[in-house]
């Protein structure tokens, strides 16, 4: 057992971080606010191997595993990289051009869902839409959907269309694969939320060191210190859970994959939600402005909480295993 990053993983992580710092900084992100998508950036992400990461090298991929993928998505979450990252990654190898970035693949998860309004993310930017249904994985031509764009989406970087009618599309994989994609999607969404939890903790800590009130840095007050300490602990817990989900996906003999992934989604979701809220609070009035990027993190978290199963579903998933063995 060596539950730490390998040297290769460390290098991978640093590479992605360096790329994101230079290409998806807060200022650059702000400029993307209008369009919420950048085809050039997408190509660069593809080139870095984000989408083909787990595709075998023989199929043009990077040939890495889920443990590597969660590390990459952790970094992408940190910088709030926009676009249907998870879907395009999941469908690499199944949809032509997904790995290379030539085909931007979006998705819609109808598994375990009620009769909510059908909201499709990034519809205007995708070349293929994949739908997870009980019966299997379906590919739908985005142009065939009847839908109206929502003018003010929750997350400025996650535009949505409200779709009135969804064609069935072409079945490209069976029910078992749909379920598997959903589990992998949940793990990657967790990794994005882990990145959010880390970044908001670091932003809040930096701000608390610099901001002075009552002639002291606010970070010298216990009330603020203890908020930050709790943020740190949630981030550490989330990291362990997300990495465990990745490692378990790669080697299902070390534990229950579903349980590990549900745990990651629950714990990373809570970390991202509470940390981004705390980040607003520590920033005070500035955290409530549009200009400071703090709110982007909370809004993205709300989006990620609503894909690949919500809190209750994953909690029940864990309970089911506990109950079986009880």
């Amino acid at each position: 057992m060596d539950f730490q990053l390998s040297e290769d993983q460390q290098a991978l992580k640093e590479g992605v971080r360096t790329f994101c710092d230079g290409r998806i900084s807060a200022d650059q992100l702000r400029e993307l606010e209008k369009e919420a998508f950048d085809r050039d950036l997408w190509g660069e992400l593809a080139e870095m191997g984000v989408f083909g990461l787990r595709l075998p090298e023989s199929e043009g991929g990077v040939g890495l595993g889920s443990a590597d993928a969660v590390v990459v998505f952790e970094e992408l979450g940190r910088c709030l990289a926009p676009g249907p990252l998870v879907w395009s990654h999941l469908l690499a190898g199944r949809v032509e051009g997904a790995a290379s970035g030539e085909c931007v693949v979006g998705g819609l998860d109808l598994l375990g869902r009620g009769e909510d309004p059908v909201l499709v993310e990034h519809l205007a930017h995708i070349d293929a839409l994949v739908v997870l249904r009980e019966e299997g994985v379906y590919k739908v031509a985005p142009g065939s959907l009847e839908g109206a764009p929502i003018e003010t989406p929750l997350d400025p970087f996650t535009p949505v269309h409200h779709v009135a009618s969804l064609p069935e599309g072409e079945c490209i994989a069976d029910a078992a694969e749909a379920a598997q994609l959903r589990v992998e999607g949940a793990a990657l969404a967790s990794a994005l939320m882990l990145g959010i939890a880390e970044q908001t903790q670091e932003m809040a800590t930096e701000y608390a060191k610099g901001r002075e009130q009552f002639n002291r840095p606010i970070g010298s007050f216990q009330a603020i210190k203890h908020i930050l300490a709790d943020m740190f602990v949630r981030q550490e817990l989330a990291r362990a859970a997300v990495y465990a989900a990745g490692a378990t996906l790669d080697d299902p003999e070390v534990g229950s994959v579903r349980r590990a992934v549900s745990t990651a989604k629950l714990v990373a979701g809570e970390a991202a939600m509470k940390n981004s809220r705390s980040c607003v609070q520590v920033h005070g009035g500035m955290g409530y402005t549009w200009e400071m990027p703090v709110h982007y993190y909370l809004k993205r978290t709300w989006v990620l909480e609503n894909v690949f199963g919500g809190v209750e579903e994953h909690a029940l998933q864990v309970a089911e295993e506990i109950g079986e063995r009880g």
Partner: protein
Amino acid sequence: MDLRYSDSDEAFRKELREWLAEAVPAHGSPPDAADWAGRRAYDTGWQRKLYDAGYAGINWPKEYGGRDASLTEQLVYYEESARARAPYIGVNFVGILHGGPTLISEGTDVQKERHIGPILRGEQVWCQGFSEPGAGSDLAALKTRAERDGDHYVLNGHKIWTSFAQVADYCELLVRTDPDARKHRGISWLGIPMGLEGMEIRPLPTLTGEGEFSEVFLENVRVPVDCLVGAENDGWRVTNVTLAFERGTAFATDMVVFQEVMRELAAVAKRVTRNGAAAWEDRSLRAEVGHLAAEVEAVWAMVKYTVSEADRTGVPSVSASGVKLYFTELKQRIGETCMRVLGRATLSREDVDGLPCQSFVYEALQSLSMTIAAGSSQIQRNIISERILGLPREPR
């Protein structure tokens, strides 16, 4: 210990309810949030109607044209206004609830003549210039300077979180008139006209996407000395006198609205489907909503308790900080539950399929400011622990 309103309170309620039943629909729908001229007209128009009907300045003394309502009558007023979905106080907020009362208490006859009537009739809009980038929780650290030059002050500084600056006629401005005095001692309260030379207003959009706040930059702005309200360097005290006007009723409207929000949440939960049935069929969700509704009910009881105490003693109850602290955090928790019930529909901030995405998402976002503005939760806990419980101050 009696929760029953008096006959005269009930008579007031009846009369007000009847008036609102006609006046509210007649006033029409509010204009678009970005239409500032329209908003000013809408809000001040409503204020004028209140004035004509005798409901303006509900807590102002009669001699200044107010209603001087008892605190229980004020509660009735807030209840009925919220129930009738009457227009919010909007751009009149600072004038009616803060600037006006301050002038009544501390202004000269000339100042009262200039402002009181116009504010009450919706003819004069005020904004607030208190906070600065470096003076938030620590308001008394403000740095905006007012230097005396003959019969003028020359103002230089940078204010933030000024609401409705775009449409205001006057600004209540806290400035430092004595830079050498200890920090609470060198502050003065000015009521200055807007639109002066050297004044720049820059919008400050919030994370809700709204633009009702601004930053105000002051560069060698000259204002006549008669803008000074109260004595020079006595502005900290002047600032605090107005707080007594509210005496615990600050969140009354909001709480009545939130009783309504809880019912709306239940209605939404009956409409959305989860696990093959209406979400409301789920015991756990019902219990969660019931628990939150109980907390709204309890905090509303706490307001009544606080108001009764203030009615007896004439001073605001110590519990007002507690109401603020509890209610603002409760609003955030309710916001989270609303978001969860709507689920994926919250990805839209416009209503979809008849679900109230617009208002639920707005409330959830807006609630984030509640634990920051007007004394953060951390500051409230300091106040409660030091002033009420008598715990020792921290070493500095």
